[in-house]
């Protein structure tokens, strides 16, 4: 995507896909519409992770926390507060962004694996609180039967809401990636030392990236509540974070739409493999192994090339 010239063909494609998604509920059974909504919001989540992972080169090991925080914020506002319904939808992503800011503030002091590990520990703290605070968050049961605004509970309301919000979010993220900020961000990924040397404030950019990623993950969280009308602590358990990482890997994390594709494959596979066998994770594990073994350079090759570290064993241990 080097040039952003207005391309007739591209516009045609976008309109075609948009139309397809809009008309989907007309010719698909209800279950598939629900599945599509799930794919869209999961894809949004994976894309938001890729913002910092693929384009920022940050080891975002615990991205699900922001997703869970967004979902729980909305769920709690809808069930426990008397605030107007839609304020919840606006406030929840903002709360996720704030959590992103706090966690980012602590983590961006470190890089690579240390960054990731610190983030996992902070995320685990958030998870532990949610998991245990029965009186407020419902503990490990979560919250179910969340009352949603009427417009979302009517036929396909949740689907169209998810579709529109996902489309807007993707557009915004696409613009961010191709903005001067996004370009700087990618430069930091490729060579943080050089960026620091030419006067770019690396940590401030990474912190901003964390906030943005947190915000969009929060949006994905609110969409989850819209589609499922329930929340549970697994939404911010570390295994989900790893699953989102797999989606990015699967789709390719140097492409903008890769994670979306990865999410679609994962959700579809899980649903249909789940029909035939209860051992879905076994199959996922084997797929992941094959992916890492036989698609080695397809995914991380570019980062290594760009960072000039394709040279033997030692270069890979730089942190």
């Amino acid at each position, binding site marked *: 995507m080097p040039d952003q010239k207005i391309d007739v063909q591209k516009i045609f494609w976008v309109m075609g896909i948009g139309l397809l998604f809009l008309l989907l509920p007309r010719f698909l059974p209800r279950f598939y519409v629900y599945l599509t909504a799930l794919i869209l919001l999961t894809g949004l989540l994976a894309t938001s992770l890729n913002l910092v992972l693929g384009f920022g080169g940050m*080891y975002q*090991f615990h991205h699900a926390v922001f997703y869970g925080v967004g979902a729980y914020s909305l769920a709690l506002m809808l069930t426990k507060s008397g605030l107007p319904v839609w304020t919840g939808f606006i406030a929840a992503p903002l709360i996720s962004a704030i959590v992103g800011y706090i966690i980012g503030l*602590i983590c961006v*002091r*470190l890089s*690579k*694996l*240390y960054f*990731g*590990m*610190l983030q*996992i*520990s*902070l995320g*685990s*703290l958030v998870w*532990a*609180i949610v*998991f*245990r*605070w*029965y009186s407020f968050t419902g503990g490990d049961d979560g919250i179910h039967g969340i009352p949603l605004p009427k417009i979302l509970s009517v036929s396909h309301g949740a689907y169209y809401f998810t579709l529109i919000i996902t489309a807007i979010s993707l557009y915004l993220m696409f613009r961010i990636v191709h903005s001067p900020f996004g370009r700087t961000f990618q430069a930091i990924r490729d060579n943080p030392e050089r960026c620091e040397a030419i006067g770019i404030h690396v940590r401030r950019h990474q912190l901003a990236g964390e906030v943005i990623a947190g915000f969009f993950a929060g949006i994905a969280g609110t969409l989850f509540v819209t589609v499922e009308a329930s929340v549970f602590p697994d939404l911010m*358990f*570390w*295994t989900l974070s*790893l699953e989102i*990482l*797999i989606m990015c*890997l699967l789709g390719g994390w140097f492409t903008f739409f890769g994670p979306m594709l990865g999410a679609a494959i994962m959700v579809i596979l899980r649903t249909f493999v789940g029909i035939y066998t209860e*051992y879905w*994770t*076994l199959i*996922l*594990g*084997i797929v*992941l*192994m094959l992916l*890492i*073994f036989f698609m*080695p350079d397809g*995914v*991380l090759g570019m*980062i*290594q090339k760009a960072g000039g570290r394709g040279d*033997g*064993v*030692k270069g*890979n*241990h730089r*942190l």
Partner: protein
Amino acid sequence: MHGFISQISLPSLLQQILVGLSRTTILFIVASGLSLVLGVLRIPNLAHGSFYMIGAFLTYSVAAAVGGKAGFWVAMVAAPIGVALISLVMERGLFCHLYDREHLMLLLFTFSFTLVFGDLVKIIWGSDFRSVSIPPVFQGSLSIFGLPLPRYNLFLLVIGPLVALGLWILTQKTKIGKIARAAAVDREMVGAVGINVSLVFSAVFVIGCFLAGLGGALVAPTQNITQGMDHSIIMEAFLIVIVGGLGNIWGALLGALIFGLTDAVGILLWPQFAIVFPYAVVVTILMFRPRGLLKSTW
């Protein structure tokens, strides 16, 4: 809420600390294995938790198969060795081809094993709870300073320092330990002087996983053996390793003490949020010392 700290009597606090120390032993054994692998091979091995779980299930199966008093002891030896064998196959077959990859890839690769092992355990042992009975020697309690302490916990308190000592001798006094430490710093240089680094790595990996299996075997009589015990232990072990300093065995001990004791005291202070205490303490420490308390080998 009012006065809830004053309700805690000194004896109950001491007893809780003793219980916490035996929990610390398990955590230390598991975390030290993780730390060893992380320090030398630089693999953040998420499958470490799976080895712990497999160790516990193997202990159950071996103890049941052998039966009687000897069953427990045979299982204590056989289960960790079984786990070590699995890890050997895994390392020689797959991991040794991947050492030069990015951490992220290695992390995901170990995660794929977590997924596979999780389901394999479900296939082999089913989803029911399993339990291992404590051998007669360790049943009942001893009185320490007038406080009852289960004999098995005392056994754990003896095992912990022994493992620490063994690891210290292994890493500081033996040749393989010295090579491993050198390889942790500069594996190319170690290779250049004619040492087969790959085999040393293999040995370290197997020892690390053996410790996970040992932790699982030791924990088996104290709790229900279930699916999902891999997911909780691995996070705890990771936090312990980070807070102690990556790759530092004494750091793992310190981290395990912090984790085990805050957990035990947390149960007294505020039972509902007991699991939050260790996480909160670890995060607080990491805010001030993000690279851990002791020196990392990285």
